[in-house]
């Protein structure tokens, strides 16, 4: 007599599977958030007025040139930060890991600080230089981390090395940033600290377009790794015996995360807690299977960042709160609460 066994969470046999329901629900929520974000702000624009051409020229200009790229940037940056957080946590098999662990954010931060303090130009040139510097910083950290991972080959030692390398890079970048702040002028210091808090203010079509092309590419690389990340949870030797090429998986995730997160940091500064918080909460709800967790984290991250950015724009309008500050203020305490609940239940 064989008792009946219910199927795994992520492979429901219902006509509308659990994955479909969760992902379409999150997509709907994201669309609603986008609608809200599109119509509220320092300058309220109704979509009907835009479509029917009744809105005045200034509103149209603001909406197309500032609001829309900003919303889209929020979507891809949120998706990238949360998606790479989920992937990093899977890679390190540790629910507290996140992309900043690898030192990408701080590497990018150091390069941007260098640019602002040493080569500061003016206007657009300065802005593009800043993006390029951030991108370059993340990329060079990627090369260091990638080289270390490659030299170590497989084995759990490699994961440990990655973590320690990330720690060293974070410390180094922090010290470098401190030194730069020491020699910076007041104006530069203000610029540095604003960027460091993270915001979507610098969203123009020219830069957003870059993110709209490259970030989906990185997201796609992560999504392709979902079932391999599941296998990795068995430990490297067992996963190898179950058909996983772990070094290849690691390379793919490190490259995708470096590219995506490097670009995000260069464009928006450090937006805290999304990469840690979103996958963590979703895992409590959906379970640890990456085939659902990864896409859900991406949608959830996009949703959270669009909402947080709309709040950041409107709460103190016409002034603006850096959205990174807002996510950290909201995310930090909630995360502590989760940890406390977790330790109590253990």
């Amino acid at each position, binding site marked *: 007599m*064989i*008792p*009946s*066994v*219910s*199927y*795994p*969470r*992520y*492979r429901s046999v219902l006509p509308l599977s659990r994955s479909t329901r969760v992902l379409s629900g999150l997509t709907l929520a994201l669309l609603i958030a986008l609608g809200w974000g599109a119509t509220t702000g320092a300058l309220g624009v109704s979509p009907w007025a835009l479509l029917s051409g009744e809105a005045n020229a200034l509103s149209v200009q603001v909406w197309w040139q500032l609001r829309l790229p900003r919303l889209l940037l929020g979507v891809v940056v949120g998706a990238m930060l949360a998606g790479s957080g989920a992937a990093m*946590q899977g890679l*390190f*098999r*540790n*629910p507290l890991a996140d992309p900043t662990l690898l030192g990408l954010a701080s590497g990018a931060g150091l390069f941007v600080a260098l640019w602002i303090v040493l080569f500061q130009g003016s206007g657009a040139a300065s802005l593009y230089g800043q993006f390029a510097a951030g991108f370059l910083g993340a990329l060079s950290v990627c090369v260091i981390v990638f080289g270390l991972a490659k030299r170590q080959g497989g084995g759990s030692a490699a994961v440990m090395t990655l973590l320690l390398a990330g720690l060293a890079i974070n410390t180094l970048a922090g010290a470098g940033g401190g030194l730069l702040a020491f020699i910076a002028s007041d104006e530069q210091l203000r610029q540095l600290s604003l960027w460091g808090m993270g915001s979507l203010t610098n969203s123009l079509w020219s830069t957003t377009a870059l993110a709209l092309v490259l970030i989906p590419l990185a997201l796609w690389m992560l999504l392709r790794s979902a079932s391999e990340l*599941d*296998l990795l*949870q*068995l*430990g490297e*030797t*067992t*996963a*190898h*015996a*179950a*058909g*996983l*090429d772990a070094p290849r998986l690691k390379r793919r995730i490190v490259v995708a995360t470096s590219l995506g997160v490097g670009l995000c940091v260069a464009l928006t500064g450090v937006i805290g807690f999304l990469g840690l918080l979103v996958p963590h909460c979703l*895992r409590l709800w959906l*379970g*640890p*299977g990456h085939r659902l967790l990864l896409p859900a984290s991406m949608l959830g991250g996009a949703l959270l960042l669009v909402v947080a950015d709309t709040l950041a724009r409107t709460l103190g309008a016409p002034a603006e709160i850096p959205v990174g500050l807002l996510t950290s203020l909201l995310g930090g305490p909630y995360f502590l609460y989760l940890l406390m609940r977790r330790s109590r239940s253990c």
Partner: protein
Amino acid sequence: MLTLHQAGLLNTPALAPFDGTIRPGELLSIVGPNGAGKSTLLSMLSGFRPSEQGELHLDGKPLREWPITELASRRALVAQQEPLGFDWQVTELVCLGSNPEQALVAELLDDLDLSHLANRSVLSLSGGERQRVMVARGACQLLSRRSPTARDGGLLLLDEPTSALDIGQQQRLMRQLRTWAVQHRMAVVCVLHDLNLAGTYADRVWLMHQGQRIDHGLPHLVLNPSTIADIYSAELQHIEGGPQGKPLLALAP
């Protein structure tokens, strides 16, 4: 069928090269003192550490030439307990590494006395329960990914699968391994610390000591008290008349 032709490892931990064959339908036990190279041997048999001397052949084809995914349908590994970061459900964990029929999962859970835990979080299980879940996962991988043309049930490698089990569960697991070996013509390789368990259930035994396979053959011949006392540096009492007339080894007080 896995054959070793003077296969060995050079670097630390080293493994002296030797010949050997693991046949479908048999339960082979690897025994030896701590640090004798049992787990190292297992990772060489699994292909995780490719042999640095000699060659291993699985079904007549060199092990290193098997594509990693194809190999996963012919051999599975149940390693010593690895910490799990996330709280998988028992059923989800059993399905990792394969895409099994629901009936197979239910059957395997039933075989290993896990049915009542099917929807439990793995992190809430005891060490022994979790160990049986991992054995079920290994068997599930082999049985569900088995190709219809395969002549036998493949190779199941287990590293101390009984280390956290009570004696009742030890008996159930060893009997189940024998059943799988016979029923699916599976080659089961089991690292064991309990010599009496090896003596009772294994068809053949490989005895490891200091990175060498020093003896192999029928359990009651290999596990003779003087050799065992010598390589384990233990004082033993030999009790005649154990199960099926096989002798038992016990520690002297």
